[in-house]
């Protein structure tokens, strides 16, 4: 009887070991929790907001520059625009997030990873079950359609079906044809959220940017209710606030305030590279 029980114990040990070995989540990160955004990087751009005419370091093309130059902040007073949310590739520029994993309770397979932004309470789903993206004529949304895969312990997310959005919230547009690839990289209690935007319509080159987060030991993210109201009496039909070409008086604001050459402030792929520092020295001050 003791012999039989000994063999049974050995068998149970094997079973436990095999169960440990079989987990698909073995070696992959978990991103569950509330993550506090760090603001040492790009604080002025992210918190108070970018200044008008600040496109430095963005690889925008001439069309996007023209688009940004006509942007008028009065847009945000229009009821239809007051609750317009940050698109998913910009949302990490502002505030904390919460992430959680969705597990199939029967198979313990990871079905999806969810992310909620504090900003506008928008939610994203990263499908981890290899499902295909919808056809190109399906609805585009502010969050887009995302699928994820593991690259080692890093989470790589591919997002399509994004509605037109922005790279910076002073009018620098990102088109609805863009594809966004993100890498979530966790080291201990630190998370780096890397965003790679490919947008041949509005960018000279792909755009790469990241944001840093720290795991919150306690806490949650707050709700962000938004209700549209009429704040200012504006024409109700046939009206959209914008500046005519050459008539935006604020485009010089950033360059003048920070003594940066206007050409540099207007951005372009060249402004991303270290050799541009030499060119800066030779450009006229505003």
């Amino acid at each position: 009887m003791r012999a039989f029980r000994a063999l049974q114990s050995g068998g149970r040990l094997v079973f436990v070991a095999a169960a440990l070995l079989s987990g698909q989540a073995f070696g992959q990160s978990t991103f569950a929790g509330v993550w506090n955004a760090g603001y040492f990087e790009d604080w002025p751009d992210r918190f108070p907001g970018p200044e008008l005419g600040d496109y430095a370091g963005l690889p925008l093309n001439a069309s996007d520059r023209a688009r940004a130059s006509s942007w008028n902040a009065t847009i945000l007073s229009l009821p239809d625009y007051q609750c317009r949310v940050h698109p998913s590739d910009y949302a990490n520029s502002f505030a904390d997030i919460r992430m959680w994993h969705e597990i199939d309770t029967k198979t313990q397979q990871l079905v999806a990873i969810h992310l909620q932004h504090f900003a506008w309470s928008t939610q994203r789903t990263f499908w981890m079950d290899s499902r295909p993206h919808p056809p190109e004529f399906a609805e585009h949304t502010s969050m887009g359609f995302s699928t994820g895969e593991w690259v080692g312990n890093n989470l790589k997310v591919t997002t399509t079906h994004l509605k037109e959005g922005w790279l910076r919230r002073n009018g620098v547009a990102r088109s609805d044809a863009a594809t966004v690839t993100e890498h979530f990289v966790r080291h201990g209690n630190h998370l780096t959220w890397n965003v790679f935007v490919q947008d041949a319509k509005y960018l000279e080159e792909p755009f790469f940017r990241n944001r840093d987060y720290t795991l919150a030991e306690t806490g949650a993210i707050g709700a962000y209710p938004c209700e549209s109201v009429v704040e200012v009496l504006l024409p109700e039909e046939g009206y959209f606030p914008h500046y005519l070409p050459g008539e935006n008086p604020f485009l010089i604001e950033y360059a003048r305030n920070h003594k940066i050459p206007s050409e540099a402030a207007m951005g372009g792929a060249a402004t991303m590279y270290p050799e541009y520092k030499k060119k800066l020295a030779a450009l006229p001050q505003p």
Partner: protein
Amino acid sequence: MKKHFLAALLAALGSVGFSVASQAQQDFAAGEIRSLQVRDNVYMLVGAGGNITMQVKDEGILLVDTQFAPLSEKIVAAIRKISDKPIHYIVNTHHHGDHTGGNANLRAVGTTVSGGNMAGAIRDSGVGAAIVAHENVLLRLSSATGPQAVPSGGWPTSTFFGKKKELYYNDEGIEIIHVPAAHTDGDSIVFFRQSDVISAGDVFGTTSYPVIDIPGGGSYAGIVSALERLVDIIIPVYGQDGGTLVIPGHGRLSNLGDVLNYREMVIVVRDRMQGMIDAGMTLEQVKAAKPTQDYDPVYGSTTGFWTTDRFIEAAYRSLSNPPEDAP
């Protein structure tokens, strides 16, 4: 009377030319019809012509628009993959051939409903689906002659004038709302109230600048007004996503954000060009000033039927001489 008739005939010919030109550039043999379920009872069929909306439930099938005639067989096949119910109604958003070319074929495979608020003559039973449109659609289609003639089997069988026509079909109210002098003078947008879906026809799209068929009674001001009407109807879930969905005449399934982005482009370009026109600039000067530069990557084209240049020409003409009946 004769003078007015000739003017209308010439305008109709010029307008039908819009759809003939677009049809001429299509390769139908290779075309396929793909479907997307929009809501429980509403589907979007996408092919070479304008998007088709299909509403289907226990009573039968209602279609909005019918694309090109050579695609009818493929369209019917796509419909039959979804439902084998009879086609009772075809609603046309306007008269262009990429939206009405399949009228005769699809009407023929359908059956007429008699009774209710759409009572037709009993003798019409069995001669096919009803084709519903604004009366200007009938005028345009029936006026075309010669190689551009449209067979009478493809003409609307039930028309309306005034602001709108209402249907109740498949357990929901359907508003067929006339938006005057927009893409053409016979435009309607179709609002499925329960499904919360709008078929916008060509007053809204995601693939090009607005097509203003001036010979067909369209105008820039009417496009703006039609878009405002769309925005009025749409209620999103949150943040311009979801809620009322819009099936454009061409392009992808859309929501409020897409309509607002399109409206933004239409108004911004209008304001720029109007300022140039008021300053006395010629068409060539306006083109050289590139009033659409920032939107060209998204909506512009240098090839195909509706190029950026063609849009600027039409916009220039319409803004310089707005029609009297423009909104």
